[in-house]
């Protein structure tokens, strides 16, 4: 584990990409394949199943440290990272060494893979007492930094601030293959074995797992107007769907649905799997499509929340499948009949896509009855002005705006600027007042950066949004200072502040919500700017927010609800 700890220390000690790549390369050039495979899974942020609950860990750590549980919570609120908090409060191994116990911090010598096997996998299926024994024993064997990393593995949230592309770059340098090849080999690789790692390092041209997804090509936001992109005729415009980006791989033997987060989501979408198998059957050759998963309800497109319900369920009931039917809207084709099409221009890929998926998606038609796989239509326009006018309809159509793709573009990987742009509709906005604040996590530990904001309703401020981002570092520090000065009450880590600060918040949409006190929920709220020029009295109201609902009937419903509340 020592070698891996050293890698993490080096990654932590620099913000420079080149140095990080060098550190990763160095690690993988030295580590045995079995350790390397584990390290790769950790660095890639593979989600592991949690083997102990954090409640148990907190309890056991407080006991080992000889501190009351509330004090551990105070510490956690300050540090903003549980794995680190536990590592910091636990007594040093050297301090508790005794004659009959094992020598302190010996596990540092063990390989990463054997630690994972002996201390993590060994816990599966054990009862709490047995798991506690393993945890406490492991603590005795590890140093402070190793404990921190081990806790990260234990709680299944291992993130070391290493981008996947960075790992891909290091490995491609080491293996001597193209970075794109390495990125593809890494896609969808979860819990790799030593053999997987060895084949990952194979020379160019080696066979890879055929159900693995291709790296997604990502778009960047258009800054300013699209006019700077040149002639509108060179661009293909499509709707930017408010669904889930996914890759559909249809092979003779089986079908796979991959989400953009590289999660295999095949089981969550049986109707898509069935449709893809039918497509494979019809065209007689394999293919890989890039597109969007969308839920189409009775009244047309449902928003992203509906889709998360589908993804979130462990068991898919018939009712759920009927209530939230999903379609796959394809906008690109990456592979057809064993041929990698990614180096062809978009116009050519589009032609082939239209051949195999001819039916255009129209959200206004209840399409679910007759099909599952559709073609994402091209939005035709003769000028940027015309496109801008179409884009203005985005919100009423339930889409996020437009995608602009250069007709000549290859299908790249990662976020390479220049060929694919997202031209999202302007966000909605409202001025809201800071009500509660909490210290942030990670980089923002000890700074109060997690805000709950409210708007007026019947003479009182009601919380409507939580926002974590949008201010500059300097502003965060300044706001933190004001929060400390204007704290009225403290409830654990949460501070109730005197309402003095007004922020303009931006968000994508408003929806009705029974879970929120305000009866409304805003989607993806973030702080646009600090309105130093405004007083809390100048902030917006719940009625203002309700006016931004997508459907007019929703607006009426919420307004009457707000009205009722005002009367009671």
């Amino acid at each position, binding site marked *: 584990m020592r070698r891996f700890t050293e890698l993490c220390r080096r990654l*932590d*000690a*620099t*913000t420079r990409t080149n140095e990080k790549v060098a550190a990763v390369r160095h690690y993988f050039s030295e580590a045995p394949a079995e350790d390397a495979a584990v390290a790769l899974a950790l660095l890639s942020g593979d989600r592991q199943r949690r083997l102990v609950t954090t409640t148990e860990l907190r309890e056991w750590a407080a006991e080992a*440290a000889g*501190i*009351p549980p*509330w*004090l551990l919570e*105070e*510490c956690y609120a*300050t*540090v*903003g*990272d549980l794995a*680190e*908090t536990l590592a*910091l*409060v636990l007594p*040093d191994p050297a301090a508790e060494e005794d004659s009959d116990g094992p020598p302190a911090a010996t596990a540092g010598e063990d390989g990463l893979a054997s630690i994972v096997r002996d201390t993590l996998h060994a816990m599966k299926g054990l009862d709490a007492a047995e798991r506690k024994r393993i945890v406490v024993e492991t603590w005795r064997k590890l140093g402070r930094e190793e404990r921190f990393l081990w806790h990260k593995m234990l709680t299944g949230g291992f993130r070391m*601030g290493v981008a996947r592309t960075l790992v891909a770059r290091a490995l491609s340098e080491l293996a001597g293959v193209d970075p794109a090849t390495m990125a593809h080999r890494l896609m969808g690789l979860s819990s790799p074995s030593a053999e997987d790692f060895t084949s990952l390092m194979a020379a160019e041209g080696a066979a890879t797992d055929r159900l693995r997804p291709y790296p997604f090509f990502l778009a960047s936001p258009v800054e300013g107007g699209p006019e700077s992109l040149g002639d509108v005729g060179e661009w293909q415009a499509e709707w930017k769907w408010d669904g889930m980006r996914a890759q559909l791989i249809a092979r003779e033997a089986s079908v796979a649905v991959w989400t953009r987060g590289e999660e295999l989501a095949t089981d969550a979408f049986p109707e898509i799997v069935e449709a893809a198998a039918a497509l494979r059957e019809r065209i007689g050759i394999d293919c890989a499509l890039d597109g969007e998963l969308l839920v189409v309800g009775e009244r047309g497109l449902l928003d992203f929340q509906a889709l998360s319900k589908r993804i979130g369920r462990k068991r898919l009931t018939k009712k759920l499948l009927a209530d939230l039917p999903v379609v796959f809207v394809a906008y690109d084709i990456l592979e057809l009949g064993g041929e990698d099409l990614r180096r062809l221009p978009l116009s050519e890929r589009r032609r082939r896509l239209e051949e195999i998926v001819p039916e255009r998606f129209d959200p206004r038609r209840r399409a679910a009855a007759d099909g599952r796989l559709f073609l994402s239509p091209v939005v035709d326009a003769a000028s940027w002005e015309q496109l801008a006018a179409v884009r203005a309809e985005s919100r009423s159509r339930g889409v996020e705006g437009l995608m602009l793709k250069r007709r000549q573009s290859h299908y790249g990987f990662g976020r390479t600027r220049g060929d694919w742009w997202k031209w999202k509709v302007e966000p909605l906005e409202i001025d809201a007042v800071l009500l509660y604040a909490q210290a*942030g*996590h*990670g*980089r*923002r*530990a*000890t*700074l109060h950066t997690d805000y709950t904001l409210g708007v007026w309703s019947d003479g009182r401020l009601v919380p409507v949004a939580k926002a974590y981002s949008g201010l500059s*570092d*300097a502003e965060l*520090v*300044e706001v*933190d*200072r004001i929060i*400390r000065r204007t704290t009225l009450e403290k409830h654990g880590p949460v501070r109730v502040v005197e309402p003095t600060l007004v922020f303009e918040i931006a968000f994508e949409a408003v929806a009705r919500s029974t879970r929120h006190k305000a009866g409304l929920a805003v989607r993806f709220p973030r702080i646009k700017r600090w309105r130093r020029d405004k007083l809390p009295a100048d902030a917006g109201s719940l009625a203002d927010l309700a006016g931004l609902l997508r459907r007019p009937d929703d607006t009426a419903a919420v307004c009457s609800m707000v009205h009722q509340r005002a009367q009671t």
Partner: protein
Amino acid sequence: MHDLLTVSDSGLYCPAGDFHIDPWRPVPRAVITHAHSDHARSGCGRYLCWTTGKLVLRERIGNRPIDVLRRGESVSMNGVKVSMAPAGHILGSAQVRLEHGGITWVVTGDYKLQADPTCEPFEPLRCDVLVTESTFGLPIYRWGDPAAVAESINEWWRENRDQGRTSVLFAYSLGKAQRLASVLDPAIGPIYAHGAVMRLVKAYRDSGIRLPSIDQCTRETRKAGDGRAMVIAPPSAAGGRWLRTFGDARAAMASGWMAIRGVRRRRGFDRGFVLSDHADFPGLLTAIQASGARRVLVTHGSAAALARLLCERGLEASVLQTRFTGETVEAETSEDVEAETSDEERGEESGGDPGDAAGDAEPVEVA
């Protein structure tokens, strides 16, 4: 029985003796625990401090009368017997002992139990009531061996030098900077310091503290030491233009706050060395126990948590609200910076304006 100390608008006040300890506003008579700017404000009528701290305090408050106490000495202020003992925080830092009507109070000021070659070690004082700081009053703060930290700083400097890079070490300009300078290995390369640090280096030397050779960082010395030098600077100079003038440099910070990874990463320093002039959590508990006090008043830092813990352990403990700013990681530092930034350092000569970064200098250990 009235308390021997209360908190007035101007600070910790002793009504019986009619004097303040570390007042935050000008008062006629001030007893000073140490010369950090949130404890030693200028403009008071008369100052009293520990003997070794006089020159450093003079640097801070200018031309005002300063009385000193030595070991074994005491002074009676309206019948309140005042004596002092070293606190181990920075040069000349001291605890204040008040005796009146058979009751003894001790105000620790800021303190640490760790060894520090630039100041006298902390001496535990027995008392009935202890007023203690709690800057690092959570069990997440447990310092390692300072000699090992010193070694890793020298190691870092050596590595940077071998790669032709200047090392810039940010540290509080009074106390921490001199403590660091005293443990640097001059064989590695030349040592330079920001003007704010230099004035206090002089005060330390004049007080008899031995420090290696340090030159003020100017355009010329910067050239001479390029790629080999260690530069010690206040945190307020980080992020400003001043740092960029070093070209290929590596920056680190030495502070107790560096114990938290999130703080370290937020500041974006290449390295964070965990070295503090305050007691860590076990140190605070040790000092509190050694005082024998039944009643403990906890000031700035994790006061509420520490007081609660002490209560659970059977002591009579509560929070004493003060305005000492060591309280938070993001403590306001601009005032200190102004007080400590010499005119020439602001000017064109050194090519920088540390003042412009004052606002975002945050995890600084203001003592």
